């Protein structure tokens, strides 16, 4: 399948151009307004009267999903003639939990019989995908997935199956997660927070530090190569096996899934590595953002400088933004120190 459009909402803005700008500009301090340093998406990023008039009651989770999906669709330049062949796959780790807690606020404050129906209907996990489908008029298969392990990789796997079976000609496939005070508390209690605000992807620590983030990253995936083409997804593996040597390996080390020593073992093989999680923050769905970075590198034939190139083990890193001849990039995520997923994308 081919990557024909990308849409992103993250801490530094909206759209693929904002993301590319961040890749060029490098690391920035996270905000420190909550319980811990974090990469939050401000409300002004989510203001767009042309879209929000159609989704007046939508919450932050839905807005991040809708804006990133809509932008991926627009970025592709594709006009889908048969809207029953446009599918949607939204994958998330935690779903719209802010709205769930807001609904529980109602239950606790006003009683079980007096909670808001609007909040309830927006708290359902598939509400965001429903808004996307309504706004775009997409009438193909539409599913929402909830995963803690490999949420993006599994969504991508399913998109490939749908395209292969002919269920869809295009699939809008992406990830969304949000960060609120409750999740910040959970992160603070369960994870090691990077008090200096810096995610260090190349320390390969057994107990890495994190800086939580939030946002949405969607991709317009197409069965056939389209005018706007970022590259081709040539394989998805959950066994660590992937044929062909990549020019660059993008790792998802961000402190969210524990032991990262496995990335170090991979680095010892001498391949050029990169990691961009310090730009958007630690998320179980962060692989979608890394995949966006890799797609941009392939399309632009530019290797972007790693925003935090801490490299005590002297591995080969992308240390400067420069033109490069890139045929293949592997996006690698290690979960629980043992299960490795690799997405192979090619020019």
């Amino acid at each position, binding site marked *: 399948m081919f990557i024909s459009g990308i849409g992103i909402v993250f801490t530094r803005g909206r759209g693929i151009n904002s993301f590319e700008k961040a890749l060029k500009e490098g690391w920035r301090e996270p905000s420190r307004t909550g319980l811990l340093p974090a990469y939050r998406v401000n409300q002004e990023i989510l203001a767009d009267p042309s879209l929000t008039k159609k989704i007046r009651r939508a919450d932050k989770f839905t807005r991040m999903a809708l804006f990133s999906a809509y932008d991926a669709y627009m970025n592709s330049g594709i006009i889908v003639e048969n*809207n*029953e062949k446009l599918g*949607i796959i939204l994958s998330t780790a*935690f*779903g719209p*939990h802010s709205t*769930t*807690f807001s*609904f*529980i*606020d109602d*239950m*606790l404050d006003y009683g*079980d*019989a*007096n*909670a*808001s*129906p609007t909040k*309830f*209907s*927006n*708290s*359902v*996990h*598939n*509400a965001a*995908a*429903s*808004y996307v*489908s*309504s706004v*775009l*008029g*997409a*009438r*193909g*298969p*539409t*599913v*929402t*997935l*909830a*995963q*803690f*392990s490999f949420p993006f990789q*599994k969504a991508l*796997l*399913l998109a490939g*199956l*749908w395209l*292969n*079976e002919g*269920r869809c000609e295009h699939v809008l496939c992406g990830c969304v997660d949000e960060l609120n005070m*409750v999740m910040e*508390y*959970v992160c603070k*209690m*369960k994870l090691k927070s990077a008090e200096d605000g810096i995610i260090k992807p190349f320390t390969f620590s057994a107990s890495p530090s994190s800086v939580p983030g939030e946002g949405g990253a969607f991709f317009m995936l197409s069965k056939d190569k389209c005018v706007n083409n970022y590259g081709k997804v040539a394989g998805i593996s*959950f066994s660590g096996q992937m044929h062909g040597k990549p020019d660059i390996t993008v790792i998802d080390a961000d402190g969210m899934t524990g032991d990262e020593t496995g990335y170090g073992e991979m680095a010892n093989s001498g391949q050029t590595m990169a990691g961009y999680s310090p730009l958007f923050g630690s998320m179980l769905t962060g692989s979608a953002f890394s995949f966006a970075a890799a797609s941009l590198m392939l399309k632009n034939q530019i290797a972007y400088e790693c925003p935090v190139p801490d490299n005590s083990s002297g591995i080969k890193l992308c240390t400067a933004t420069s033109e490069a001849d890139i045929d293949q990039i592997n996006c690698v995520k290690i979960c629980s120190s043992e299960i490795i997923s690799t997405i192979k994308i090619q020019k």
Partner: protein
Amino acid sequence: MNIVISGIGAVSAAGTNLAENIDSLRYGKRNAGPVSIFPSRLPYPVFEVKSLPEKWNSTGMRTLSLALAAVEEALNDAGLPTQLSGFKTGVCLGTTVASQLNDIDFYDSFRKSGSADLKPIDRYLKGNLAEAVSHSVKASGPAITVVNACSSGTDAIGIAVSFLKNGICNIAIAGGADELNRVPLCGFGSLGILSNSLCAPFDRNRTGLNLGEGAGILVLEREDFYIGRGKKPLLYLSGYGSAADAYHLTAPRPDGKGLESAVRSALSDSGISPEDVCFINAHGTGTIDNDKAEGAVLSRVFGENIRFFSTKGYTGHTLGAAGGLEAAYTAEALKEGWIPASAGFACKDDEIPISPVSENTEINGSFAVSTSLAFGGNNAAIVIGRA
């Protein structure tokens, strides 16, 4: 590549295994009552699982317990071990409650004091339905949890079929599970679609749905793999279709175009025409809007003489489990050659062109359809075939 249904497991208020469930359908048992598993003053009757074996009562993980009970039954029925490490096995399950971070005591403590006991978080993180079931049975293939509201179970079955057809695995555990939970009970109550009495799908005087809980699990296998195990196929998962309304967050599209697309897609996937279908297990929640839209579509696609029923009157609406349970009932009905009376139906609604069967009815045919409609305008349908 044909996909065989090799095992079935079912847990609901209608029974803690498939045979008990089918007996309840056969004899018209409707085991509803007031909520007992959590405090509630809401007046709505619910369908609770009253006698889940102690073995499956993992504190605080009721959805997972329901799922594991049905998974074990389905694996036994398939003649497979309950530990599948030697096989290429995928897991695809639907749910709603297990995916939501909605522990009321945890949140109440946090909002009062800024801190809370993290045990509910630990349970939540360990309770992702497909991941937890996959871990429990030592499956080595992909594990995907579908959270498509009320069509989750049906969509999960459809995705599992894709796993198998594309050779990602030889065996798939598919279906759905959901527990009765205070948050959705309040939520559905707030929407004004819960009935104060027993639900009456497709009846003129229907007043809404009843919530329930349970799990419905199918074991699916690639036909070549199944035959290679020395088995003779009887039931097939012949087709799946899914389509979005692109219309409204909570209301079904009145013209039913999304459901019609899903049904026609499932028929096409199966390579059959509407005339080949001998009955339909309808979503039939008992709400005004759902039953009206669904009845219109079934009539339009299958004609006025199609035999159909809803089993929500026996189980309540089990949300993410509904598609799994109804697939289980559909497969068993096709195998046994009869369909149950649509519980709660008594009076024809003049706004719905067709009526469900009002008594147990013999059927004779090779294909049946099960439909699901969901919040968010998701529609899904599967076709089950008999050899």
